[in-house]
């Protein structure tokens, strides 16, 4: 097939562009998002943190696969590696060796590296699910509150204040047994929710619900604040004028304009929830071993401060690194999306 050159030339020329003197080529095809990505990539610290957080996420994804493939053995007991007291591993350093890179647990001699890797899977799954739920509730309530003046806005506002002033930890502890019991019995009877009979699953869900139930207000506040200014923009009037539905106004016109600050919140919520899971575990509300989470390993490790310092430090360091790395990515995202803020 031959192309007609004259046709090609007439096609796509725009003399008005010249008349109005606009430099098009330099920014052609770049959305605000693409510009933010470019800024993010220029920041070395953000890129390094992103690299490490990707490795952490890959570990979390790989762990259950490796367990299934028989490569990792997080639950294999190694009594033979423990010393004469039957608790602390032989030979100091928690029994670090070629086959157990991070040593073994005191007491049962399970491989610490394998347990931590699988713990990342559970902890990240809890943190990410809770974040998704938090952002969903916060964004929807924030948009609805911001858009509807008057009563609805007031109700959501009071609701936010109430939630923020609630003693979250007390609630968490007080409700933990009855709530988990409820999930394992009543909820598990609902068709489709049978999986909740498992205690770990029910506890995991309870932790997720508590995190989201107390985590959404700041998201709703940020979103509401954004929407308050966005709803006065003329493009919202333009959409109204076209007869756009409420749904369209909220989620097609406004949502794409609020998700930048929400995204920043997401990247900061994930590490916050990872540490929250650990804190809950310390208070006794957590998935219980043998299923590993960063929280329950850490809660166990504090019993060995002097008897097995290596075992005390390693889980703490893994948790700290994970949280810091995710936080740095969040900071980088915030700076990239809003170049005006200073660090």
């Amino acid at each position, binding site marked *: 097939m031959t192309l007609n050159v004259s046709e090609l030339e007439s096609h796509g020329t*725009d003399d008005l*562009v010249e008349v109005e003197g*606009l430099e098009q080529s330099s920014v052609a095809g770049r959305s605000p998002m693409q510009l933010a990505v470019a800024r993010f990539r220029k920041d070395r610290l953000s890129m390094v943190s992103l690299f490490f957080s990707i490795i952490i996420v890959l570990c979390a994804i790989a762990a259950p696969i490796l367990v299934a493939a028989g490569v990792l053995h997080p639950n294999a007991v190694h009594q033979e590696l423990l010393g004469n007291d039957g608790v602390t591993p032989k030979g100091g350093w928690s029994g670090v060796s070629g086959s157990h890179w991070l040593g073994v647990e005191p007491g049962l001699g399970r491989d610490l590296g394998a347990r931590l890797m699988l713990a990342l899977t559970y902890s990240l799954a809890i943190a990410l699910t809770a974040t998704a739920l938090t952002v969903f509730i916060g964004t929807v309530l924030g948009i609805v509150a911001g858009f509807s003046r008057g009563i609805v806005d007031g109700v959501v506002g009071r609701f936010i204040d109430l939630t923020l002033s609630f003693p979250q930890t007390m609630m968490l502890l007080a409700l933990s047994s009855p709530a988990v019991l409820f999930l394992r019995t009543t909820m598990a009877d609902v068709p489709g929710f049978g999986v909740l009979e498992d205690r770990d699953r029910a506890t995991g869900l309870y932790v997720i619900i508590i995190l989201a139930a107390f985590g959404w207000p700041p998201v709703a506040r940020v979103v509401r604040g954004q929407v308050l200014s966005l709803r006065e*923009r003329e493009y919202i*009037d333009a*959409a109204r004028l076209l007869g756009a539905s409420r749904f*369209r106004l909220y989620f097609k016109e406004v949502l794409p*304009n609020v998700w930048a600050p929400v995204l920043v919140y997401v990247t900061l919520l994930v590490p916050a929830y990872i540490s929250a899971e650990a804190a809950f575990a310390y208070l006794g509300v957590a998935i219980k071993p043998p299923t590993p989470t960063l929280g329950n390993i850490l809660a166990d490790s504090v019993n060995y401060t002097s008897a097995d310092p290596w075992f005390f430090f390693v889980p703490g360091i893994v948790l700290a690194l994970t949280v810091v790395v995710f936080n740095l990515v969040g900071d980088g995202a915030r700076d990239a999306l809003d170049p005006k803020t200073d660090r």
Partner: protein
Amino acid sequence: MTTEPVDELKPHPETSSLTGTPILEVEDLKMYFPVKSSGFLRRTIGHVQAVDGVSFQVRSGSSLGLVGESGCGKSTTGRLITRLYEPTAGRIEFDGRDIANLSERELHPLRRDIQMIFQDPYTSLNPRHTVGAIVGAPLAIHKVVPKDKILARVQELLEIVGLNPEHYNRYPHEFSGGQRQRIGIARALTLQPKLLVADEPVSALDVSIQAQVVNLLQDLQREFNIAFLFVAHDLAIVRHFCPEIAVMYLGKIVEIGDRETLYARPNHPYTQALLSAVPDVKQAKVGGRRERIRLEGDLPSPINPPSGCRFRTRCPIAQDICARVEPPLLQVGPTHKVACHFPGEVGKHPEKPITPRLLGVDDSGMPDLAAGPATDLPTGPGYSDTWFDLEHNTMGRA
């Protein structure tokens, strides 16, 4: 405002025939915004009388210009017509149907026929949507075109408004102000409206490209037979675009008429002051120059407008009657109405008010039994074929 764009504007047919069927008829339209007290209870402590009883017609395929100072209620009027606001009172008859109090659901099908071009091309386009999504949104919302045909229609529209149809997947920030305004125009055209409210469509643009956009609007008007309500404070552009012009002051129309009469023989002191501030191209060419009339003082608050004639606090020829009685919008020519007790050309205002006999008051505005009862003056939109003859001071016809 410079006069440059005027020179570049395409010539317009110098006809002033205000015939043609009205597609929009507005009568006694009012919009009062409540003013709330601060604090917990937020009681309503007053009202901004943004629009207070305006009446006019827009004829099919024609355009009415709405001019006046900032804050006089032009945008509010436009937003009432498009029903972004629900009026406090009044009638908005579009295509034979009163739409003033229709619900959003009842309005939905009518939304296709009345569209709006916004003033600020930087906030009127959603920064997160591509041009294709923006221009195609009306089609998606009203489901007039099957999904796979939307792109073709969008490209067609982009071409019509003079943009490169291949740019449909770009974002608004990649375009200049003038191009963005063209995108807004394309969006307004998408549903083939019968009436376009253009709220200062070029005043945010660079002077050098204003004329291009005005010419585009004019071409579109001719091609698609669209009626315009053209809001502007640039009198030169309104004069160019609109065969009929209404001058607003503090929520009311003070003078309305065909372009030629209004520019050549304005009768209201406010119109005269407005026009004297504009360099007149034609007179400049002849070498003459209008005497500039200065407006004293600030615009009064629309929460608490002056009694009687709202312009009296700044009017150079105000007298006692002006504070006591509100002047009716009186027809003084075949297509000319003015709301003043002393209407007349510059320097030829009558010494005595012309309105007392019609209103049943004496020359200082006090109720006067001897003057007889007030005459029933026509107050509706449009023009009648009888009017008040200023030379003979009687109702009559030419």
